[in-house]
């Protein structure tokens, strides 16, 4: 019952995935696409929440979220999660609720099927060493279209 030997790509990809996760894996692309589809009603919620995150960054560190150091980003995110984030933006929407949505949508984008725009090239499935193809006998119809780059 011991795990089998890890193939070389597995160790490589697991090191790579951490940095790739946000953009390389297509999570943002996934969320953007769903906000134009099943999550259409959340567009305003997202616009509002993202602006409020930057307000929190400005209020705490004098910078928008993207400009923060990694440890500051973590600190800020923990504040959001606990619902204690400062900033005028969190009056209409609770930061904890916004955070919950973003976390769940991120999980969907990273671990869900690549056909929805996330999990590029099945990066998380490779990380989990899940055998391909996902469905036996359906290879041809279910392979994603080859991408360039």
């Amino acid at each position, binding site marked *: *019952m*011991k*795990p089998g030997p890890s193939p070389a790509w597995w160790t490589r990809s*697991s090191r790579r*995935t*951490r940095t790739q*996760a946000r953009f390389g894996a297509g999570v943002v692309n996934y969320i953007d696409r*769903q906000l134009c*589809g*099943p999550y259409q009603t959340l567009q305003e919620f997202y616009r509002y929440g993202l602006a409020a995150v930057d307000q929190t960054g400005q209020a705490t560190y004098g910078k928008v979220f993207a400009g923060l150091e990694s440890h500051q980003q*973590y600190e800020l*995110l923990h504040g959001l*999660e606990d619902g204690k984030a400062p900033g005028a933006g969190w009056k209409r929407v609770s930061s904890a609720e916004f955070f919950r949505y973003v*976390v*769940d949508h*991120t*999980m*969907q984008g*990273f*671990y*869900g*099927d690549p*056909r*929805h725009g996330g999990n590029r090239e099945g990066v*998380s*499935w490779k*990380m*989990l*060493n*899940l*055998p391909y193809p*996902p*469905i*036996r*006998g*359906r290879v041809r119809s*279910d392979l994603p279209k080859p991408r360039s780059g």
Partner: protein
Amino acid sequence: MSLKHVNAVIVGSGAGGGVVAKELAEAGFSVVLLERGKWFTPFDERKDDLRNQRTCVLGNAFGPDERNPRVYVDSSGHEHIVSPTHGAYSNNAACVGGGTLSYGAMAWRFMERDFRLRSTYGTVEGSTLDDWPITYADLEPYYEKAEWEIGVSGDDSNNIFRAPRKRPLPMPPLPPTREHQILRPAAQRLGLHPFDIPMLRNSVPYNGRGACMRCRWCVGFACEVDAKCGTHNTVIPRAIQTGNCELRCECIVREILTSERGHATGVAYYDSNGRLQEQTADLVVASCAAIESARLLLNSKSRLFPNGLGNRYDWVGRNLQGHAYTGAIGLFDHETYDDLGPGASIAICDFNHGNSGFVSGGMLANEFIRLPYQFASRTAAGIPRWGAAHKDFVRRYYRSSISVMGPMQEMPVFDSRVQVDPKVKDHWGIPVARLSGHRHRNDLLGTNFMSAKAEAWLKEAGAATVIHSGPISFDGPSGGQHQAGTCRMGNDPKTSVVDKFCRVHDVDNLYVIDGSVHPNNGGFNPVLTIMAIAYYASANLMKTRKGMGAT
């Protein structure tokens, strides 16, 4: 223009209605089977881990769609209009076969005591718990018929708690998974009685269809190789083959029509083009599952039945129940995942009855195979929620964890109910179901106990860490895919909706045949019991209507 009169119109083609259609059609009755959804094959819907009946964050694969809202009242009395993808909606698939197209397919017989809960445990405060008007022995031949006609694999001979059966299951179990091999000796060391779960799934070619190919896309999906046995690929095709049954899809039934003398005369429904149609029939059968069957009866108001059909004593829609799912997840130092579906394969019935401190209990089994998002989105105390810690957790334990879960038998609560909403209507202008109420305290006691038993089993199996699935939510009524109880079967018309043959007490040609009639829902997935009751009720229905339709 009205449609050609038939002997029977059946509303809903799920586990109950599909069986009734076949039984009546084979006996020579002319039957119209109305289904609100479509007839899917596995190739109509791609295997999509974010859009299926189990995980519906991007929608349901097999319906219902957004045109079918419901109203949900939470514990603080706030009303919410919920869509079918919302957890509080209590969604059940809307398609030919109903839930049986995409279910996990566990095929449990209830135990003898499940039909005699009140005699066994006495009156339970705050619950309408009662004995069934029928016994296990009444249903036994029909359980057997369901197992052989629809097809069940498994081996429960090691289950010393099971109710007596006359005939073994028609198919052997699938070969054991790695989880099964880890859990079986552990259960035996604990003095428990593990066995192979009976499943409505071909383990060998059966009934003209092939065997399970053991892929990871099982519960929540239509079977790629048609090895999962539902009513859509067994009894419904057989009903149609007789030439006596016409299946009409995408038909939304508005109400059951009654005559001035109080008999059911047929149904009014909107067809797939949105046109209002009237189908007259000698018999009407509601098989729409607990929430929609109750809604249909309540929406069928007339001068004689101002509060809806069968509702003279305000019992329609009451006692809505499902299952309180509970258990634990064990984290191991070695791999446990072997990528073999359906995943669930081993169970124990040691804790269904005879526990101290609370009423009844439930079976425990290893969980169905989990897809990455299902695993990653699971939250419980002890599991990191996000960030690098969460990713490390998923990477480390996705292939090294076992989940043991089970359905706790719920105590029926009179105030947990389905009503029709006075304001909100669906796309067709029909008042929607309104769900309100709360669970019984016994559910919490039982789930805590069962989680502890699951934990002990996983620890014995070598889990380094065990995480409880967390307390069940008490916010609002139960329900879900195992919904039941809303048209209770009983002898007293004042405290039940249908008689022991599933006939509505005060309408002699109207039947409710689905999970609605269960007075309580067992500590098991209820589908085989729904099928058995459908066979049983059909047999009695035909006995009382000899001569009708005989060709």
